[in-house]
């Protein structure tokens, strides 16, 4: 089995009387994009900050790229790139100067290839105070990537980004992962997590409520698949069809829900054939990560 690049065992962290993280265990392997999802105050950022060596854990064992983030900060910085949720630089500092400074501290030359990839070329001579929120996020990402780290931690990386910048960041995360870089991603954006992450952990109340692939997380819920169908003659009954439970008529569409989509669609198509009707539009909508996430939050609130 592959040695995990990021390992957390029994992490606990409190702020005064507030227990923010209550015994978290996680393993993330090389090249994996691992998402941390959760409502505000769930403990995602605290987990990341403990891994980044910014917060001292009360208990637990942490490893990032074979170093202890709580004790080996110098070593950690060479192997870990971090984009903070609320990072900033002095307003008078130019982008090129900031990148040059970080390169100097890592003992490397400037990285024009990276600046091109992240679309920073036109920003290099602008001061940090003159950048938009999205442009700042791109600069912060460049600061995190400039030394080619083995692990990168991104906290809400697409917050405030426009569609193009978001797509560029997603492409960057995919190419990092393909190159063997391990990506830790804390986000509120379910669609982003579903699209980018190999595995996700849903953090609720300082605990991991669920961990697995996005498909496994959605499949584990009670949410059902929705089938929407429009036929040319509209002859289908507004009723249950085999395994498909009738939901409603909406415009020209009949809607059903089911747990076994393949079997339910087969049953519906059989009726279409029997009725000598013709399918014009058929949509199968799987339960989303967002629905499953909300379900888990509700379960946690009830508990």
């Amino acid at each position: 089995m592959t040695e995990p690049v990021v390992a957390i065992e029994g992490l606990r962290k409190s702020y005064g009387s507030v227990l923010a993280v209550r015994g978290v265990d996680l393993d993330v392997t090389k090249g994996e994009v691992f998402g941390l999802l959760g409502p505000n105050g769930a403990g995602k950022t605290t987990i990341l900050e403990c891994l980044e060596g910014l917060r001292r854990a009360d208990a637990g064992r942490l490893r990032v790229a074979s170093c202890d983030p709580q004790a080996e900060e110098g070593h950690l910085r060479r192997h870990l790139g971090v984009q903070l949720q609320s990072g900033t630089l002095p307003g008078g500092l130019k982008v090129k100067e900031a990148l040059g400074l970080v390169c100097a501290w890592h003992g490397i030359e400037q990285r024009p290839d990276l600046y091109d990839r992240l679309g920073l070329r036109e920003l290099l001579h602008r001061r940090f105070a003159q950048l938009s929120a999205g442009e700042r996020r791109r600069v912060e990402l460049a600061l995190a990537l400039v030394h080619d780290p083995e692990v990168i931690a991104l906290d809400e990386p697409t917050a405030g980004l426009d569609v193009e910048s978001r797509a560029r960041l997603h492409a960057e995360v995919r190419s990092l992962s393909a190159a063997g870089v391990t990506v830790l991603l804390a986000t509120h954006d379910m669609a982003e997590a579903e699209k980018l992450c190999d595995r996700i952990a849903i953090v609720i109340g300082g605990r991991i409520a669920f961990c697995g692939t996005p498909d496994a997380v959605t499949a584990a819920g009670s949410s059902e698949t929705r089938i929407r169908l429009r036929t040319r003659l509209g002859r289908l009954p507004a009723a249950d069809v085999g395994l498909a439970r009738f939901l409603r008529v909406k415009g020209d569409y009949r809607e059903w829900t089911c747990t076994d989509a393949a079997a339910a669609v087969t049953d519906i198509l059989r009726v279409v054939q029997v009725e000598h009707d013709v399918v014009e539009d058929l949509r199968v909508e799987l339960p989303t990560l967002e629905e499953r996430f909300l379900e888990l939050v509700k379960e946690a609130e009830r508990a």
Partner: protein
Amino acid sequence: MRALGAHLWLQLRLDVREKGTLLNFYLVPLVFFFAMGAVFASIDPALRAVLAASMTVFAVTMGAIMGVPTPIVRMREAGTLRTLRVSGIPRRAVLAVQAVSAFFHLLCVSLVIFALAPLAFQAPLPQAPGLYFAVVAVLLFASIGLGLLIGVVARDQAFATMLSMIVFLPSVLLSGMMFPASLLPRVLRWLALALPATHAVQAFDGLAYGLRTAQNPALSLATAGGIGVIGWVLAIWKLERAADIQA
């Protein structure tokens, strides 16, 4: 060392772009120098004898105690220190760069005062210019050490301003810079011994100008240096152990 040098050079360029730095380190001390120099020279010719030293103590104390904490607290409050830290720049390097840039600016102001005092107010040059600048260097080291400590300890900008005033006002009023410390009540004279400005005034008078002083001027110089060492050590210790705060 190359990275530290590049960082320092960048900081000096940033300081030139920053109005607050120019105000704290240059404009206010020099305006005060001209205003107070004119007053001192007219009301008491004896004060004119050590005018350059007195105004240097004022400028350095103000620049270091009022000016040094501000960017440190601002960096902590805004999250800049965290961003630099996760980008691989050690916290103590950030502190060192702030300190060295402040040292540079305040040394420049001290040189300007040293050069202009004889021209503007007919203030005599010190008997021992080498010792004069040795005292300037120790005063800078000590005052910047206290400024760093305030910057690291203060929770926010308002608290930093309060701490700075607690150190700055007694430094101006009790150190002997404005009037002889012998006129002060004994308790205030004792209190003044905790301030590097007091020891710097004694060291300037005794070592650089060859005047009689209440304390041994060499011992005063050593004490000022000692206060500086304490300030620096405590500031670095506090910053390094602050894993769980804004740093």
